[in-house]
């Protein structure tokens, strides 16, 4: 997983799975990195081949983390598989999904 800054957004890339098994490993570095003027989180989902309810829970938790800093979370280029699960759980209406 890679973290980089773009303006006031923390960009998270380089992970292939969001699950109950690795949610902790992803959440903590993001929370730690979210300092200073950083308030938004951009999650690059273009490599994510698998997401489960634990992964969805992580996205919801990160949304709250960003909101505490008056920011928001954006989901970048989710794979069809992830998009399908987001739609299945109606979370595609909750998150801002960005395609480029």
């Amino acid at each position, binding site marked *: 997983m890679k973290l980089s800054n773009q303006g006031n957004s923390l960009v998270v890339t380089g992970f292939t*799975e969001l*699950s*109950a*098994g690795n949610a902790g490993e992803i959440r903590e570095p993001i929370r730690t990195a979210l300092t200073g003027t950083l308030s938004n989180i951009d999650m690059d989902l273009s490599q994510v081949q*698998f997401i*489960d*309810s*634990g992964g*969805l*829970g*992580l996205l*919801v*938790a990160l*949304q*709250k983390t960003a909101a505490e800093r008056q920011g928001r979370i954006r989901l970048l280029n989710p794979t069809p*598989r992830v998009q399908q*699960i987001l739609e*299945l*759980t*109606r*979370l595609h*209406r*909750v998150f801002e999904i960005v395609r480029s």
Partner: protein
Amino acid sequence: MNSPVATPPTRCCTLAVACDFHAIREAAGQVRQFLTAAGLPASEGDAWELILTEAGNNAVQHATASGRHLPIGLDVVCGSTVVELRMTDHTAGFVLPAVAALPAADSEHGRGLYLIQTLADSVDYLQGRAENCLVVRKKIAAPLASPTRDLAGQLAESEQTLQAMTEELASCYENLSAVFRFSAALNQPQAAEEFAAKWLGELLTIVEADWYVLRVAEAGAVGELRVFASSFHDGLERMTKLLLRTAGMTQVEVAATLTKQDEWFDAQTPLESADLLAALVRRSSGLAHPIFVNETLLGMLTVGRLTDETPFKAAQVNIIQTFADFLGIQIANDQFRSEYLRTQLLRRELEIASDLQRSLLPETLPQLPGFGLAGQFQSARQVGGDFYDAIPIAGGRLLLAIADVMGKGVPAALFAAIFRSHLRARLYLADRPGDFLSWLNRSLFPDLNRLSMFITAQLVIIDPAARQVRVAGAGHCPLLVTTPGGTPREIPNTGLPLGIEAEVEYAAVTQPLKATERLLLFTDGLSDVRGAGNQILGLDRLKQHLQRITNQSHTAVEMAQALTAVLKDFQGDQPPADDQAFLVFAGE
């Protein structure tokens, strides 16, 4: 069993997965590969990977402290039109909602079950005591081609034939498993034996064997293996039970339990002449396979041929072992379930009996002007049939009745209920309590006699206007009468208990009732209560306590409280072994 050509296109994947998220993810990946290899499209593989991960995550997250050390069982069966997942978890279990709802959008939890239900066609959850089983089924959009055609061309080679048989066995696994579950659910103790015999008969055909003996560990008898099923019909009498501690190493079955591995017999190492099996098969080759689960010996399957020249091939041994382990586990589960059912039923019976018993007692006791009446009831560990009643009758009088049905559980409580309804149906007989008891005996005798039960009872009619008390008893404890500063007096019950003989005449005693007198009607749970060192309170000590209480108390309620305290004090922390019931009547 059918020829391999007819093998149904069923494939199985069985895994035991460690109880952690990473192991679950890995297993989900494996199952996905297995399903893809079976010909499922990628989208279905995706769905199953997610279903399995969600189910597995729940099993990990909610595993009990001991369950965390046990593997999560995974069986995936891929048929031609449907895939079924069975996941065995060691959690406290949960109630599966018919339709799981999505949680609020800002909730971090609660989407797993929703995803499983949305992706699958059916979800069931079977709850057991030590483990539960989630069963998920999902239809295959485009039915798979039958793999039997591929096999048809390869039949010539015997090893491949055996392989096909192994697959067929795997396909039977589910049927067999279902049959056992059903038979356990129906609580038919014979079913497991019958099915074991049926399937072991099939095993003989598959591995070209001639005989088998399946033994199963006896519940509650450690170190004994009972013959559960066998191809031998005669000559089994001597070997019904294998006592592991006393039998020598001469028995191949005993040897296998000690070494915990397969023990072979053939031309080089024949069965010892002292071996009970040798009496049934002189020259034989085969093996004794001990069935262990978690270091516990469940049973022993011994399979052999009636020749010592051609031993089993490796694939055949493999089938025997698989079959044995599967059957052993099913039988152990079956016994476990039956035992569990029995304790459940017994507990339920006691609950019913206890409810029934309490429902018989009057909610409030009728009071006569100038007198007090108080009752106390304490049920035993094992519910019995103690009962009392107080009914106002004509002429401003009061009928007090107390009875003790000999027996425990629902039958005793039921008889108490019958006694109560008979009593209340014939209140006009209360003028003559002796005749009343005779009538009760006559009506209850046929049922009591048939069940070898009896009832002791006492009827007391209090007539305040006439200042009289009339008493009749049927083998019951005496009526105790006390006055403050006096000495206790007994009005004995001389008649036979109800249900001993069909026709009994009961005598009634009439005595004057002084305003200061107190009456105690009680069941033998009071006089026979056991205290420290298992000593019995006894009638004499009960009378002493009653006299002291009479001297110190003024009302029936105070007396009942004091008497309850005496009993509680005497028996300590232990709940009473027998029901305790009493009624106190006092002039106030």
